[in-house]
């Protein structure tokens, strides 16, 4: 088991945002966190890597409680792709190299460069490596952000809306890439998504949040129209195509 969350709660300004959330992610597993806007999906990710401190409960990554580790130690175990990507003036190579920050004290070593080199190749970013990232498209920038998280050599990847602001082709490409990376590197991964159909297509497991609590956890094939209706409050029909559920609002 890579990630084990035990009954965490989080309050913002005294108002409960997350309550009684427990979940587990195993090696090579990609979990999608789903639910309406403002339900606490991003908050859950930030609680997992300690950017936000849960008021109770424990977050275990391979038997270590994240909440008791230093920020740098957490960054050596958990890679985080934020929903907000700022395109600075760095080149793609430099931007990805920054993912080595938790491992570098002052001087970049040869091994750091080799790891970045490898990540750039597995993301097919070779031709863009020396280009400043502020001249990149949304999809390319997203790949750089994923690359930065990968070179942290994490055990767990957290991705907040990795496909928002991407067109269909890029969405599919990024999700395929994420799934490939998760399998190949045998890491655990948790991502938040809005598009249910793509979530069902690529995730191994879907976790639905409602009012800050886990409403249902299911493999894509087991998801019913009732779950969607209860979580999102609209009636839907579920059709199956090639074994994957398609959500059709009524």
């Amino acid at each position, binding site marked *: 088991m890579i990630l084990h969350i035990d009954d965490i709660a989080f309050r913002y300004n005294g108002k409960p945002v997350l309550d009684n959330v427990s979940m587990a992610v195993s090696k090579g597993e990609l979990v999608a966190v789903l639910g309406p806007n403002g339900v606490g999906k991003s908050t859950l990710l*930030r609680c997992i*890597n300690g*950017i936000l401190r849960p008021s109770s409960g424990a977050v275990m990554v391979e038997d270590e409680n994240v909440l008791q580790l*230093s*920020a*740098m*130690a*957490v*960054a*050596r175990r*958990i*890679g*985080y*792709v*934020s*929903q*907000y*990507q*700022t395109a*600075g*003036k*760095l*080149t793609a*190579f*430099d*931007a990805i190299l*920054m*993912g080595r*920050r*938790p491992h*570098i004290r*002052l001087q970049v070593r*040869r091994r750091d*460069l*080799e790891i*970045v*080199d490898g990540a*750039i*190749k597995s993301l097919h970013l*070779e*031709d863009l*490596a*020396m280009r*400043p990232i502020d001249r990149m498209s949304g999809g390319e920038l997203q790949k750089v*952000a994923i690359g*930065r*998280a990968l070179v*942290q050599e994490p055990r767990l990847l*957290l991705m907040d809306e990795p496909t928002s602001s991407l067109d269909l082709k890029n969405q599919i490409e990024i999700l395929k890439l994420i799934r490939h990376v998760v399998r190949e590197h045998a890491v655990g991964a948790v991502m938040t998504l809005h598009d249910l159909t793509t979530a069902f297509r690529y995730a191994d497991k879907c976790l639905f949040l409602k009012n800050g609590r886990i409403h249902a956890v299911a493999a894509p094939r087991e998801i019913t129209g009732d779950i969607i209706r209860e979580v999102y409050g609209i009636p839907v029909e579920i059709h199956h195509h090639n074994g994957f559920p398609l959500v059709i609002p009524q």
Partner: protein
Amino acid sequence: MHFHDGTLNRDYTRYTQRKLLLIHAGLAVLVLAVLYGIASGAARIPVAEVIRSLMGTGASPRFDLIVWQIRLPQVLAAVVAGAGLSVSGAVMQSILRNPLGSPFTLGISHAAAFGAAFAVMILGSGTMTSAGSIAIANPIVTTMAAFSFSMLAALFIVAVSRMRGAKPETMILAGVALGALFTAGTMLLQFFADDVQLAAMVFWTFGDVARAGWQDLAILGGVTAAATLYFLFNAWNYNAVDAGDETAQGLGVNVGRVRLWGMLTASLVTAVIVSFLGIIGFVGLVCPHVVRRLIGGDNRFLLPATVVLGAILLLVADTVARLVLAPHLLPVSIITAFLGAPVFMLLIVKGQRG
């Protein structure tokens, strides 16, 4: 550029070496500018004599006196102030993620000017000398007052940044407001000042590196060097913050702490320089932008390069200020504003097109 297997990090190494080479070339230019700066002025000194005097190998006593008592302190003050103002500007721009970050835009310079005016008016530190020229009679009081008020401004901005939900832009806006407030305060003092006080206040605001003596230089140099080391040590953190607060946090960087100490240190350097030398605008704002164009935004190279280019720019500007209306000596701040404003506009226009 296309990379084949295994050549990517070799190409990257070459790319970083090119940046290092540029920085070293800058250092060489700086050395030449220092020699030329010492040689130039109302009395021209041959460069060979300058070198002889610096090495202590038998220059004429007249040249020795000019070099060691007048030119060298002034040249070194320009180097230190240029380096300090420009690296502080670069750090502020990085940690606030805003191209407008600079001691000038954050109200720190205006606060120093108010402090100096306050010292002249209320603490009575400005007088007329027997020769009839206006001077700051008590430079220590004036400097301390300027320093206190600029640190007060810096602390206010940092306090604003600690407020819940404050964004980097909040600090810039707070700085602009603060600058206006201190300018109003200075105007109020000036309105009630007598002729001598008014002249002393205005005289103080002309940033001039000729003001620094050896003792001032020791303080300026010590603070600037220590702060620069601190900035270089944090270059990775500034890169991370530049990528966004959340991304930086995900990389294990304590964004709040990095921003707080970065702002405090940059403000301290600025406050020290401004309170000793007066207001020297535009170096802190423009120089980091120019360097970013030349060498990219990676703070590991950007920061040392801004140190070098800032030093060169202010030194050249000061040498020009000494020569352009010779035998009249212009304060360097007039030149930096005249050069800096068009350069900044050019950068904005080119940036729009790019």
